[in-house]
């Protein structure tokens, strides 16, 4: 039907086909985006030996490590603006191995409650944040986290000011106890007090700074946390002698670095970098002598164990998706496990904690690296 020109403008629908055009373009756009999304899914789903996380770190040129930032000895901001501590040194070892430079590291402070979400969302590559290994956190139906070897065996404890006259857990009946909400300590305290049939008032804070501020200002009669953490905090008080740890050990708190379960290759890499610094201590390889020890290994074809460890022979590193000299890189950057402990939490640090369980298996502790073969 062809209309005379002067009628065309009088019809409200000037262009009948326009609607179809809009519709068709809208539909095709939808289909296109659907197809693209489906395609992207297929791409992400492809499995294999390669680690997407490792590739992402390398293309980014920076390792992102989620850390506490408020816990002396483990990760704390020093006056010069650098983070220091056991957790931080382990991150440095990872960066040194993966990127060849311990300084190519971004330490991102994450709260107790955000840590698992930041790991699950991929915001951080690895969590090195005095995190206790527990079943729920490890289980695929729980937080679905893959834990690296335990790097610090701690125990839950309670600290109270001496003047409060609290000598044991029983003395906390009817009193207020400060806790960091969401910590294992919170749940452990609740369990233990329930078992003892003691009523108490938990005062829950979001982070350690708030918790210990409230404790120091006398709002609560006691504070519960990990023993190393309590000792670390106490060392910062103006009057450390006025506070004492109660004799009871509330819980085992084994701490480990954590990665996403979704990337087992990356998890394995982290695991064996931790084992490498532990093995280095066992063999007396230190930050100072690692270069000489490597030379020795190169020169001596009979030192097979050491040659394998340093990647002079074999392909241990490559099997993990890492450079063959990964053990050398880790130890050269931060030293062996004993050096890391001594420097940050041990007798040479301000925390002055005995090594206790965190001693090598060969010296009566629990630290053991499986064979490098």
């Amino acid at each position: 039907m062809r209309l005379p020109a002067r009628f065309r403008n009088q019809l409200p629908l000037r262009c009948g086909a326009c609607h179809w055009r809009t519709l068709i373009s809208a539909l095709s756009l939808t289909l296109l985006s659907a197809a693209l999304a489906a395609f992207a899914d297929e791409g992400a789903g492809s499995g294999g030996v390669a680690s997407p996380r490792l590739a992402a770190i390398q293309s980014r040129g920076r390792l992102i490590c989620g850390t506490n930032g408020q816990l002396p000895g483990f990760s704390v901001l020093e006056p010069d603006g650098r983070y220091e501590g056991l957790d931080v040194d382990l991150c440095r070892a990872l960066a040194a191995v993966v990127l060849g430079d311990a300084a190519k590291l971004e330490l991102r402070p994450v709260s107790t409650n955000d840590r698992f979400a930041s790991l699950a969302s991929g915001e951080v590559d690895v969590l090195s944040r005095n995190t206790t290994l527990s079943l729920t956190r490890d289980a695929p139906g729980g937080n679905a986290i893959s834990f690296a070897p335990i790097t610090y065996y701690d125990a839950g404890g309670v600290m109270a000011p001496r003047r409060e006259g609290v000598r044991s857990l029983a003395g906390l009946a009817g009193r207020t106890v400060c806790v960091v909400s969401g910590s294992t300590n919170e749940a452990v305290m609740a369990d233990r007090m329930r078992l003892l049939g003691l009523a108490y008032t938990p005062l829950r804070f979001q982070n350690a700074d708030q918790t210990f501020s409230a404790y120091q200002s006398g709002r609560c009669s006691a504070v519960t946390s990990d023993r190393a953490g309590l000792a670390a905090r106490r060392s910062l008080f103006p009057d450390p002698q006025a506070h004492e740890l109660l004799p009871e050990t509330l819980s085992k708190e084994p701490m480990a670095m954590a990665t996403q379960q979704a990337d087992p290759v990356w998890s394995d890499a982290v695991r064996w970098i931790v084992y490498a610094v532990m093995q280095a201590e066992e063999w007396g390889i230190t930050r100072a002598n690692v270069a000489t020890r490597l030379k020795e290994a190169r020169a001596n074809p009979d030192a097979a164990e050491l040659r394998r460890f340093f990647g002079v022979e074999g392909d241990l590193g490559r099997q993990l998706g890492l450079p063959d000299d990964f053990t050398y890189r880790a130890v050269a950057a931060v030293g062996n496990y004993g050096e890391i402990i001594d420097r940050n939490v041990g007798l040479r640090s301000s925390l002055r904690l005995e090594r206790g369980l965190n001693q090598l298996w060969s010296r009566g502790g629990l630290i053991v690296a499986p064979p490098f073969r």
Partner: protein
Amino acid sequence: MADTINALSNETIPWWRNRRVIPLLVQAVVALVVLIMIAFLLGNLVRNLTAAGLLLSWRWLNQPAGFDISETVLPFNAGLPYWRALLAGLVNTIRAVLVGLVGATVLGTLAGMASFSRNGLLRGIARVYVELIRNIPLLLQLVFWYFVVFLSLPNGTAAIQLPGLVLAKSGLYLAGFADGLRWVGPQLVNDVWQAPLRLSVEFGALLTGLIVYSGAFIAEVVRGGVAAVPKGQWEAAASLGISWITTLRTIVLPQALRVIVPGLNTQYISLAKNSSLAVAVGYTDLYSVAETTLNQTGRAVEVYLLLLSAYLVLDLFISVLMNGVNHLVQIKER
């Protein structure tokens, strides 16, 4: 010419060019596309959550929470399930919001009225209050009230004691009826204050912060509402010899309320949302319980969905109430 027009009107128009059909058709197709998109996105979400092992599951709600909550209205212990813990947190949030709303309204109205008082000192104080408070972030104010003001209170025997009332670092203790209608005042037992009615300093700090902060905004809403009433109303009342306070109460405020109520609604909703900052001062509200729940169960998506819907429902409820109030204060045209 006439033939052409006749032919045009008589010709049956095919449905795809019918002016009544086309818009319906377009809307139907758009609705279909939107539905397909939503279905696709939801499907994608479920598929990816399944792949990540995070498929929505609500079984954890019935598992024992395993952590304690102080200051609950509903009885709670660590053996009760997570949903009871979340409920206890929600009740704590509602408690803070309700008291906060009343307090902020009273304080805001007083400050708003003071800001156009004829007393210069009163006016000045109201201005300083509003400008000081609304230009400082709420979180900072809460931390100030808690750590600087409330935690500086003395404890034990040194606590501030008035008849039937004790204000100590551990909380506000009020006299009340206890076991069998016996009037009991606060007592110091074993160096710990005991009383029938106890409010923690955490609750006190949160309330003070919320009331003072929201009060400043409400004062501005009230001032704006009163300023919107024509000056002639004041002058007419004055010429009839009606006192300032009576003018305000019976002539100006009823007219100003029409302007005030919608603004008040916004402030009330803000207050309800701001209550989630309680976590900074150790008050166990819904957000605080939800965070611990999330940490223990690892069900981030579910916990956040619950949290989002709880605050949404709370705010929508406040809005509905305020819309009712708004309807009441509208000019009734008869």
